[in-house]
């Protein structure tokens, strides 16, 4: 189903694309990534998953210092002023099938990402090679644009390099210069978390294809209710780093409990504490676990209970009566 890191690397090798790979602890940001591969030659890249009001998705992949102005991009794409937002965290998993902090052009290898548009920073062409995550945040691979292009063409994606910092005039007579790169189909996810009543925007949503001569359809942004004040465009990968339970997944639940417990153990069993407590360390640890973990684990269990109940509730309300 979803491509794994190993499958991707194998694919690159099959295509005889040259790349270097570096393993490192999971990183969520370019800054963290820089700690491990910043000095290996080659440019780091920042990768954003964006979404417009008609549920069309875009990956923008750029050099870290390239300014990416969502307002300008939105106009250039012809999706209306303010029409581009950072895509919500859950879409990373659902559309790109990558964990948070791992947006990468390589995610386009997945079926679910078929309709995602990719815009690459033309600055990449001036670099010897660039770093991307190969579908997992615990590794970075560097390759040059020839290699990247070869890969993209192999999945039937035309590589599009753009001057992301350009700010051309867009108006009635001058359509957005990137309008041709708007995906032809929108993707509404089965569990919409957004504020816009997505079912309503979908109802009359025809293919807003853009004609080849670049005439973009002026998309009038529906007067957005003050719904987005707090659900704003900030991406918070670091905060929701530990992917929250979304289904009553026992393995994830138990893993999280064990992780919290072992983290506590590891922090409390030190040379000093062994010296200090000796044989009694067991008791001390037992108490410490109760003191520090009780409320945390209870909260976790409550979330799990609520999720399981909800699943049962859904099943109950959708069950079909026995056929007589």
């Amino acid at each position: 189903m979803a491509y794994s890191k190993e499958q991707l690397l194998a694919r690159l090798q099959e295509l005889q694309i040259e790349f270097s790979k570096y393993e490192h602890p999971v990183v969520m940001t370019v800054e963290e990534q820089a700690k491990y591969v910043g000095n290996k030659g080659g440019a780091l890249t920042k990768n954003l998953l964006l979404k417009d009001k008609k549920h069309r998705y875009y990956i923008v992949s750029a050099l870290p210092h390239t300014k990416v102005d969502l307002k300008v991009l939105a106009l250039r794409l012809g999706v209306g002023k303010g029409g581009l937002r950072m895509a919500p965290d859950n879409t990373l998993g659902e559309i790109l099938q990558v964990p948070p902090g791992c947006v990468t052009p390589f995610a386009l290898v997945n079926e679910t990402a078929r309709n995602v548009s990719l815009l690459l920073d033309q600055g990449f062409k001036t670099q010897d090679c660039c770093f991307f995550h190969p579908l997992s945040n615990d590794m970075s691979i560097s390759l040059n644009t020839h290699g990247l292009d070869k890969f993209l063409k192999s999945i039937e994606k035309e590589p599009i390099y753009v001057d992301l910092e350009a700010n051309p005039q867009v108006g009635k007579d001058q359509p957005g210069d990137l309008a041709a790169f708007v995906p032809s189909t929108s993707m509404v996810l089965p569990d919409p978390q957004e504020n816009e009543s997505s079912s309503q925007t979908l109802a009359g949503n025809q293919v807003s294809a853009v004609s080849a001569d670049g005439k973009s359809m002026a998309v009038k942004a529906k007067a957005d209710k003050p719904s987005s004040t707090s659900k704003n465009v900030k991406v918070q990968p670091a905060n929701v780093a530990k992917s929250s339970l979304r289904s009553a997944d026992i393995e994830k639940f138990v893993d999280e409990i064990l992780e919290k417990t072992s983290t506590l153990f590891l922090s409390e069993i030190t040379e000093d504490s062994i010296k200090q407590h000796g044989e009694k360390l067991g008791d001390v640890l037992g108490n410490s676990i109760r003191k520090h973990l009780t409320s945390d684990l209870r909260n976790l269990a409550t979330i799990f209970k609520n999720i399981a109940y909800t699943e049962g509730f859904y099943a109950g309300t959708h069950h079909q009566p026995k056929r007589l």
Partner: protein
Amino acid sequence: MENKDEKNGEQEQVVNPWEVSAKDGGKIDYDKLIDKFGCQKLDQSSSELSHVKRVERLTGRPAHVFLRRGVFFAHRDFDDILNAYERGEKFYLYTGRGPSSEALHLGHLVPFMFTKYLQDAFKVPLVIQLTDDEKCMWKNLSVEESQRLARENAKDIIACGFDISKTFIFSDFDYVGGAFYKNMVKVAKCVTYNKVVGIFGFTGEDHIGKVSFPPVQAVPSFPTSFPHLFSGKDNLRCLIPCAIDQDPYFRMTRDVAPRIGYHKPALIESSFFPALQGESGKMSASDPNSAIYVTDSAKDIKNKINKHAFTGGQESIEKHRKYGANLEVDIPIKYLNFFLEDDAELEHIKKEYGAGHMLTGEVKKRLIEILTELVERHQRARASVTEEMVDAFMAVRPLPNMFD
């Protein structure tokens, strides 16, 4: 109605469901408020008979931080609830939110955090009312928008950790009708127009929606309003944790209850959560820097506390070491009072900071740590709340295990 009292040219403090302001832009005088409203002060002494101690004995666990620190400081008939509980008679909890905005800040969470503790400690069911109709009327929102906000707020409320097998969340637009409405009419018949004007300050210019709203917030106090939950339990008592500005609704309710054959609901009331800029500051949805929001990132929290929190520290380090900090107005200390669980650590910080040994930066750093953990935990829980979960919490369904 507590209007600005122009006698003696003095401005009285104003506390009602739609306005809270202190005298001369100073601090709210809670003792005066208790006097004026006629509720009681919670006994937080170390006596074995104090409310705090009784609660600890009855629930077999330490009292919640908010109770220990006097955040919840006033009550009506809390003793009756405890006495009945001791005899084996249960009760149910009722609290609510007016969904006027999507952006929830920490102050909004306070009553819900406390209510969750009450649910867990006493093992009792809870009904949560989302007054979307009220906000539609008072804030002039469209019906659809207020309903949408109600659902969005429900997600943050659920993220506070309520047990779905013991919690019923409802929005007025969805639920009013049937037995609930019958109780509304019973209550409405007992409150004259003059009375409601006296309590809430309505004028001839206010539309009739506002005037007829109070019964909506009153009747969740009566178990017969929820036949799918409490049928056969007409005598079940109700405890309402809320901020003290909601007292007028329940004064009215308590007045009416015996006349229609119901128990008076008991109340446990909290003081107001201070804005970052200080007690006299106002937390406003239009000023994101006046409060910590549940959507804030770690960076935002750090920034807001460091740059916008009003402190009682002195202007210079030398002065600070000499005179110490003014704990009366220091916001970081006040916030720590709400959110630092460890009593000993709080005492230590207050002592050292007040004496000038600890600097403001250190206090702020500790606060940032605590708030970041709180907000991150909330965000993780919030991420687990799906539309289906909201539907389940809001479904009119029986809760067979609500007292387990």
